[in-house]
């Protein structure tokens, strides 16, 4: 099974070695790879997205899996998503940062890093699709899924910090691979081998996801937006996907191979700025349609329970909302646990509280703004092609701010770039977990990653992209399954910490010490 997977992964990379090719030959290769991979990719994607029918609507099992988990975690930890909300903010603000530990990774930095990996195309493109296919009511379910997803992030990020590896050179590595293997072994000797299997499965899926949803999909979608804004099919760039791919791959390569942290640092500063700009622009558009806002909210709530003209009725609306929330905030997928685990703290649960803010900002704030913009501008269109999500959002903004598509294009490019940097890191962590850390394994992964950047933007590899999208969701199976076994561990950590917090035994520092 693993070998065939590798075959699928490697095929486009091998084909890439043949670049540059004349356009006709390249087309041929695109199609040949696509056809070769298609049956296998379809089978895997079909399995992961396998669905059952409710009321005539296809409900993908993985969505039920993620939502049940989020709901169970929310109940098990007595609405931790709500009750730790304020404390999480205090932690991010740095009230508990010991000045003697200044210079270490702070809660804020871990959160910001994780967010730059999740805020991206899902918030822009995915939401447009949800609102178009599911109507305004999809927003309601999206927000609900975002709120529940906070509990999933709480659990996985707490575990990520608790079971991370700290090496003698002072670096750290964490994530589901480590908490699945170490955590389950710690729970009981009988679970040791299950933990190992889940960790390996997770790592394999994570590598797949890092090449697909975290890479090819990003390159592909941002290229589409760039072409659209420069004149569509008439654009000079229209048939130069490979050029775009090479440029992006070079930039990514400079960061991940060349160690040119400058580029990454610049991106990591511009991306939050773009996020703020996007939210501000969204609020501006909403503000300019202020008269329509009450009606928009009403349609969000009423649309969630009534079903005029929406395919699949209430269940159809619900699925659209849930699906886009899951695509966007990745709660339960396990990726964020990798990014969060670098924080410096001796109370792992604190990072869990901080992680609550990730689905909140990503889904409850940013996605909702996108949805409202689309609703108040009346841009949503039930006949939209799901692959044209960015274009729809772009149009919604354009109807009020004519030059905004250009800003959106820059935002899309930067979001895509930072998502790629983040996923290259997640993938590399999974890769080194499987193959060990060495210069050679490192380089092999990074070169493959760059090859997929070019592949994603230059080829019409529908099946391969479907397949790797499926990989991201596949990560949820081993991750959530393992987490169920580890819930008592998290509970113990939480209860101890919460008692200290409530009793005022946690030391505040600086100005916060005088704040009440």
């Amino acid at each position, binding site marked *: 099974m693993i070998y065939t997977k590798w075959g699928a992964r490697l095929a486009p990379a091998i084909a890439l070695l043949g670049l540059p090719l004349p356009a006709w030959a390249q087309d041929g290769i695109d199609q040949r790879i696509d056809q070769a991979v298609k049956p296998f990719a379809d089978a895997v994607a079909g399995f992961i997205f396998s669905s059952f029918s409710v009321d005539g609507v296809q409900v993908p099992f993985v969505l039920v899996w993620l939502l049940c988990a989020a709901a169970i975690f929310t109940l098990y930890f007595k609405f931790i998503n709500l009750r730790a909300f304020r404390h999480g903010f205090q932690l991010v603000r740095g009230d508990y940062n010991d000045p003697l530990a200044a210079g270490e990774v702070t809660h804020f*930095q871990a959160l910001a890093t994780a967010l730059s990996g999740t805020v991206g195309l899902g918030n822009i493109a995915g939401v447009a699709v949800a609102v178009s296919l599911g109507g305004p009511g999809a927003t309601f379910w999206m927000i609900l899924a975002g709120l529940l997803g906070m509990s999933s992030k709480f659990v996985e990020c707490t575990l990520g910090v608790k079971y991370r590896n700290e090496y003698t050179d002072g670096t750290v590595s964490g994530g589901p691979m480590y908490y699945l293997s170490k955590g389950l072994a710690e729970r009981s000797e009988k679970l040791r081998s299950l933990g190992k299997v889940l960790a390996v499965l997770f790592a394999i899926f994570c590598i797949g996801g890092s090449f697909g949803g975290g890479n090819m999909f990003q390159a592909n979608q941002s290229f589409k937006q760039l072409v659209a804004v420069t004149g569509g099919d008439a654009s000079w760039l229209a048939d130069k996907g490979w050029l775009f791919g090479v440029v992006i791959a070079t930039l990514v390569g400079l960061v991940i191979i060349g160690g040119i942290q400058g580029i*990454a640092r610049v991106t990591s500063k511009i991306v939050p700025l773009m996020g703020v700009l996007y939210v501000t622009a969204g609020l501006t558009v909403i503000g300019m349609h202020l008269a329509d806002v009450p009606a928009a909210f009403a349609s969000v709530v009423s649309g969630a329970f009534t079903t005029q003209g929406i395919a699949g009725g209430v269940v159809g609306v619900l699925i659209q909302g849930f699906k886009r929330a899951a695509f966007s905030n990745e709660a339960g997928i396990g990726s964020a646990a990798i990014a969060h685990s*670098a924080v410096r703290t001796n109370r792992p649960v604190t990072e869990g509280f901080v992680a609550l803010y990730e689905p909140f900002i990503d889904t409850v704030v940013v996605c909702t703004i996108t949805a409202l913009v689309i609703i108040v501008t009346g841009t949503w269109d039930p006949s939209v092609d799901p692959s044209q999500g960015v274009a729809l959002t772009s149009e919604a903004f354009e109807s009020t701010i004519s030059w905004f598509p250009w800003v959106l294009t820059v935002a899309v490019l930067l979001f895509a770039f930072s998502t790629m940097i983040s996923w290259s890191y997640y993938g590399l962590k999974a890769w080194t977990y499987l193959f060990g850390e060495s210069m050679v394994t490192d380089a092999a992964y990074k070169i493959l990653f760059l090859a997929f950047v070019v592949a994603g933007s230059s080829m019409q590899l529908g099946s391969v992209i479907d397949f790797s999208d499926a990989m991201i969701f596949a990560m949820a199976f081993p991750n959530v399954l393992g987490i169920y076994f580890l819930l008592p561990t998290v509970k113990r950590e939480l209860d101890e910490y919460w008692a200290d917090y409530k009793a005022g035994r946690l030391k505040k520092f600086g100005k916060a010490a005088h704040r009440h």
Partner: protein
Amino acid sequence: MSEVLLVGIDCSECAERALDYAADWAAATQRQLVVAHVIQWSPFSFTTPQENEERHARREAELDRAHREVVDPVVNRLRELGLNVRGVIRHGHPAETLCDVAEEFGVTHIVVGKTGSSRIRAQLFGSVAHSLVQISKQPVTVVP
């Protein structure tokens, strides 16, 4: 209560002048001298996952280098001259961190150098001395 002087230093020439000034003053008045070096850092900066992973190791290296190249030579030299000296290294915003250190060590007077940059440059980019004068609870001497 014995009075404590704090002097902020970096690797620049102006810091050298501030240090000489503070050392002379401390020697003449028999005061304890705290020599502080702040490594510029912000808890709210945006970082990449790779940077986060290496942060702890890098911090250790920064502290080590600051000890070896900036603070320890100064502290040793002044001790040989018979002064009561302590060295402190912290990460943070220079002016704010100097204030925190002042608080922590019961400092009664802070001495810093200034880069001597033009008024416009200081307006645009700010300077440690300038912000320190604004926020410090202790008197501040700025050595030109």
